[in-house]
């Protein structure tokens, strides 16, 4: 294996890892505040992909242009879902919440199948097949644009939580639920807002990922599993952790495929997960629970 092959693999892993990280952010946001594990994570992201696909088919919109639209649409979906359905089980044991969200996931996949069928579908943007070279390093445009878009969306999200009043209120709810209520915050609205923000992340990630991969309803469970691996490695509830986890998974998969066997990619992801769980159970950037 030559030097440039390794550099190409690392670059590709980094770019795809950023996109994976963004897709996992939604899970981390929702768990970090509401303490509910969203088992419909991948399904909501695939809804975002189909939304961007429709925007492309109906109006010829580039998926990158559709990112804010997909985020807005999924925000509305997430807000209503939390307010009308999820909030009613938030006081119940965790396994009841899991079952509810798993049921929602199945319903979403079935609905997508009814509407779009099982065919893999994608978008044909002008740069879909294009790449550029720097020396022997070849970078393809869709992956580069997707990674940049992922960083922008992640930056906006982090800024929202750090600087906006609503973001601070949401963080206050996450830190101390009772305290937030005492100071007069509308916690149920903030929870719905948080679920909406998490779903918006997924909508944005879905639109971005549509640039890279074809979409079909059965894609969803794979992304749910991937997001769990990423956030557990990065630290459940940590936004920076989700991004770091995504990058680690992207790079480790690229290297595993190159140095060993592509069939071993998933084994390496899960191997990394086991190592992190053994050495640092709270995840790389997660906070330990005492």
């Amino acid at each position, binding site marked *: *294996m*030559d030097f440039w*092959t390794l550099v*190409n*693999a690392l670059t*590709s*892993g980094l770019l*795809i890892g950023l996109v994976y990280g963004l897709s996992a952010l939604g899970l981390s946001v929702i768990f970090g505040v509401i303490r509910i594990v969203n088992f419909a994570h991948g399904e909501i992201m695939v809804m975002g992909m189909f939304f961007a696909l429709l925007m492309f088919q109906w109006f010829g919109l580039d998926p990158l242009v559709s990112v804010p639209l997909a985020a807005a649409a999924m925000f509305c979906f997430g807000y209503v879902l939390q307010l009308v359905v999820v909030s009613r089980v938030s006081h119940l044991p965790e396994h009841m919440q899991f079952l509810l969200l798993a049921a929602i996931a199945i319903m979403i996949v079935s609905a997508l*199948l009814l509407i779009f*069928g*099982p*065919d*893999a*579908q*994608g978008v*044909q943007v002008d740069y*879909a*097949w*294009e*790449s550029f*070279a720097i020396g022997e390093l*070849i970078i*393809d445009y*869709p*992956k580069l644009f997707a990674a940049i878009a992922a960083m922008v969306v992640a930056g906006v999200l982090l800024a929202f939580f750090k600087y906006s009043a609503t973001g601070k209120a949401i963080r206050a709810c996450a830190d101390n639920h009772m305290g937030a209520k005492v100071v007069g915050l509308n916690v149920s609205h903030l929870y719905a807002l948080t679920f909406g923000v998490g779903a918006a992340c997924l909508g944005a990630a879905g639109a971005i990922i549509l640039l*890279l*991969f*074809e979409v*079909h309803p*059965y894609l969803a469970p*794979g992304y749910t599993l*991937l997001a769990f691996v990423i956030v557990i490695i990065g630290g459940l509830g940590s936004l920076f952790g989700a991004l770091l986890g995504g990058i680690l998974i992207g790079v480790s*998969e*690229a290297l*595993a*495929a*190159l140095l060993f*066997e*592509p*069939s071993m*990619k*998933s084994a390496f992801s899960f191997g990394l997960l086991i190592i992190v769980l053994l050495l640092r159970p709270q995840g790389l950037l997660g906070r330990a629970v005492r």
Partner: protein
Amino acid sequence: MSEKTKPTISRRTVLAGAGAGAVASAVPLKHGFAASKIKVGVLLPRSGPQAQIGIDCQRGADIAAEVLKAEGYPDMEFVLGDTETKVDVARAQAEKLIDGGANVIVGCFDSGQTMAAAQVCEQKNVPLVVNIAAVTKLTELGYKWVFRNFPTGPMIVRDAFVNQKKLFGMSGATPKRVALLHVNDTFGTSLAGALFKLTPRFKMPYKIVEKIAYDPYGRDFSAEVRKAKGAKPDALWAVSRLNDAISITKELVRQRVDLMGVMSTGPGWYEDAYMKATGKYGNDVISLVPWVDYKKPMAQKMRDAYQKRFPGRGITANQGYTFDAILIVADAFKRAGSTKNTDLQAALQKTKITNNTTIGKGIQFNAKGQVPYVPSGAVQNRDGKQIVVLPEFAAVGKPIWPMRPWRKR
């Protein structure tokens, strides 16, 4: 009416009678009787990653029922089963279909799923007519109820070698280094194994310089293509499924992997969805696979009926071999005149069909339930259509080899 003249049927008698009736009606008539209609369990991956392929196979079955009825074959009732693209579900669904009264099972497209269904059919003494499954051992395990009109992995590989030699000879362009990318499921592993075993025996002019197994349901295939590119191959040989074939093509173009050609032995590269997703970049790919022979009258009838019912959708091996599987069942039932399992088995063993839809002399099973030789062709993608370029007796066009470079399309 006096008490003495009242009917003497007690509540208990009525309940017992109703119970017996219910039990009798619930018992499947799988060992059957003389009948005018046969119940065919069509077991396919209708959901999961292979759903679209399952739908294509079902379309082949539906067209077969329509065409064969017009040809004077007896009526068939299809009972549908979904493997969900999972081996364990295939097993459970095969049991369910048989317990539901299916006289024969047709399926299951995928080697692993078909192996699972075959075990059930063998246990329950119900014939399984395989539409598509290449794993060799399916007809090497001494099964008495399994019948397959589809080539085994070694047969596909052998014909692929023969057709490759012809292709290279016709064009004068011979690759010296070939990279093999194959899925790591039952089908891909068995085919890649056969390919490796037979390469020296066929004295091919090239060397397989890289063999890469991958998960067909992965997301990103850039690493696979990068690894193949690192071996500096002249040509790529792929054993794929659909979505991975699309992603690999995208990566080949983006990573600027210029090749003499892409050859496939398996599904994916010739599918409608593939050509729709890849556009001009899907052109010139050659699939070395079992295929439909449009020079046969039955294939022409299938094509006419198919285009009428599903305009704009192409016919592939999926529809062709499923059509043939239904033809085999209809023919056996017609000759047996009974849905009794042993009668059907005996009739299947004596199958002799020449007017089928796929490449080859016809369908006749050996003692193992395998058609001894099912030839494959070479099919090239051209602007959304699949053109048979080899063997000569079934060819409808001349091959383009080497393929046109990605950047000059």
